[in-house]
């Protein structure tokens, strides 16, 4: 596996082929259960579905956390759930992991229902929870070994594997430190390393970079991208649009438990937003007043408390029109449309409050 990883890291343009051959190696080596075999046979032409949700619903008393959502994830895809806090992303993740019972609908992971086959489903998964729950009293390396024991993995495998994963997570020099001594970003990387101890083909990541500084986020994204290149299916929740854009092949935008839109980041932006956005600030008092005077510029106008957004194919041209009307914003910025704009368009609200 290590050799293959290095090989594909050197050939980044063979991601899909790489994933295919890796999966074949994996299945030949393991001779895994029947559902995995049927999974593999159709892979070369058309990646099989590894996760399938139909009309998935979860209610807590009066509150509907997940409201009738359906989606499919093919093997090797990096699939995101983008939405604000409380949108139902984590609840969906818990149902996939079989640790939260659904209220209605069907869910299928590798051909198995996580409710009736919790241990079998979780044996396929690597899980990175929203809150780190490492064994703080154990050493860094021991955390990996202990976790591997839950999968019944022998120490003869776990000892070298732990070292390999520590290297992957850039934590080799911390192997014998207590978890307490790690920074937030290091703990997150250790949690990811821990989730890989059983060589899962599906990795669930719940808000993987929340609370991390920009540098730590970039290191983490790099590690996740390597896994993606290695053919691991990533299921990722996030409320960071840049994270979704960086990591997701396809995503669903979720709000109040419902799917608002589905597609690749580029197609969502194309479909729901303009090419560019002109951001103008006239001061918090004047933004809403001036909105009226900006009517007609660009394709669409969005007035927020702190700024005015003009959606236009050509942002610079829109800015010239603003100046031509004699309006002088305190600051102006032309940028590409992002998923934030998609979310704003679909829900009328920002992703991060």
């Amino acid at each position: 596996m290590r050799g293959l990883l290095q090989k594909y890291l050197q050939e980044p343009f063979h991601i899909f082929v790489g994933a295919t051959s890796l999966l074949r190696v994996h299945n030949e080596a393991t001779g895994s259960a029947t559902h995995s075999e049927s999974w593999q046979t159709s892979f070369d032409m058309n990646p099989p579905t590894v996760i399938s949700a139909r009309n998935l619903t979860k209610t807590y008393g009066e509150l509907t956390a997940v409201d009738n959502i359906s989606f499919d994830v093919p093997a090797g895809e990096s699939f995101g759930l983008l939405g604000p806090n409380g949108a139902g992303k984590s609840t969906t993740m818990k149902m996939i992991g079989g640790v939260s019972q659904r209220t209605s609908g069907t869910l299928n992971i590798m051909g198995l229902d996580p409710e009736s086959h919790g241990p079998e489903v979780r044996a396929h998964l690597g899980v990175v929870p929203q809150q780190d729950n490492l064994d703080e009293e154990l050493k860094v390396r021991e955390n990996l070994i202990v976790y591997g024991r839950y999968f019944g993995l022998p120490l003869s495998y776990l000892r070298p594997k732990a070292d390999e994963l520590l290297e992957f997570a850039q934590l080799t020099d911390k192997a014998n430190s207590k978890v307490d001594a790690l920074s937030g970003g290091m703990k997150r990387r250790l949690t990811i390393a821990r989730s890989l101890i059983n060589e899962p083909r599906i990795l669930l990541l719940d808000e993987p970079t929340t609370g991390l500084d920009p540098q730590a986020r970039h290191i983490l994204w790099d590690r996740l991208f390597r896994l993606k290149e290695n053919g691991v299916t990533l299921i990722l929740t996030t409320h960071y649009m840049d994270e979704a854009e960086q990591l997701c092949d396809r995503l669903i935008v979720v709000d109040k438990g419902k799917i608002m839109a589905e597609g690749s980041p580029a197609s969502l932006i194309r479909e729901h937003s303009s090419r560019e956005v002109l951001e103008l600030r006239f001061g918090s008092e004047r933004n809403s007043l001036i909105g009226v005077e900006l009517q007609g510029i660009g394709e669409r106008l969005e007035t927020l408390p702190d700024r005015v957004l003009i959606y236009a194919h050509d942002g610079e041209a829109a800015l010239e029109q603003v100046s031509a009307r004699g309006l002088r914003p305190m600051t102006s910025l032309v940028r590409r449309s992002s998923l934030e704009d998609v979310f704003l368009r679909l829900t009328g609200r920002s992703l991060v409050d």
Partner: protein
Amino acid sequence: MTRDPLTSGPPGDGAAKPITTAEQPLRAHPPAVSAARARRWGSFFYAEQVLRVMRNYGWSVVLYSVGQPVAYLFAMGVGLASLVDANSESVFGGVSYLEFVAPALLVSAAVMTASGEFSYPIMDGFKWRRVFYGPHASPLVPQQIASGHIMASTLRFLLQSVVYLAVVAMFGASPSPWGWVSAVVATVAALSFGLPLMAYAASITQDKGQFALVQRFIVMPLFLFSGTFFPLDTLPWAVRWIGWISPVWHGTELGRVFTYGMDENPLLTITHVVYLLATATAGWLLVRHQFVKRMGS
């Protein structure tokens, strides 16, 4: 079989060199094997984790196990006993005060350790550091996490009781050849008290200092009014019921039967055994129920 130029010897040298493990790619066994092993051995896997964590404070476990009995036995069995024995030996069934008090201290110590192992670590697992949710994302199920914690704790109670008993024996306070059974009795008494406490701890969602209250208003009265330092029937009827419901009393009386052959109605002896086993079993069922309720299936 094709020859691998990197791992086999030069052509014509006869046998190929053995392939070292370092050159073989590491492979985890298939998920189906993980799931099957976890279903069968999951409780042991989690117990291993708890024991590894305990190993970190192994010295304090050992010192607690040895230091506490030595201190108590010296204070009660030597200091207090010199006064008590000088006045009346008949109250204590014809044995020395040290012999009388030793099994009680053995059981009380195990119960006190249980009050620690089955309270704060449970809150830690569910709420503070959420350590139970790590294994819950693996093939383990909540019942196995609970039983793993219980198994590791039981081992600790047993080891502690054996050490305690060894110290007691050195003081000459366990004359019967059946004395060793009292270490098992102390362990069962610890579970009889500890498992209902663990179920309660698993039901707490907000920390409002409940465990401090448990220590002060349950553990301490049980320690003091369970026939520990004086026979239960010397207490007024109004408080004697504390002993009857107390695992410490049932365990202590049973311990006395084994360490110095206390003369007791066999029916009462059986009652002690049944009571301890019944409360431990009921506690275990409640623990399972609470863990599943809290974490899902």
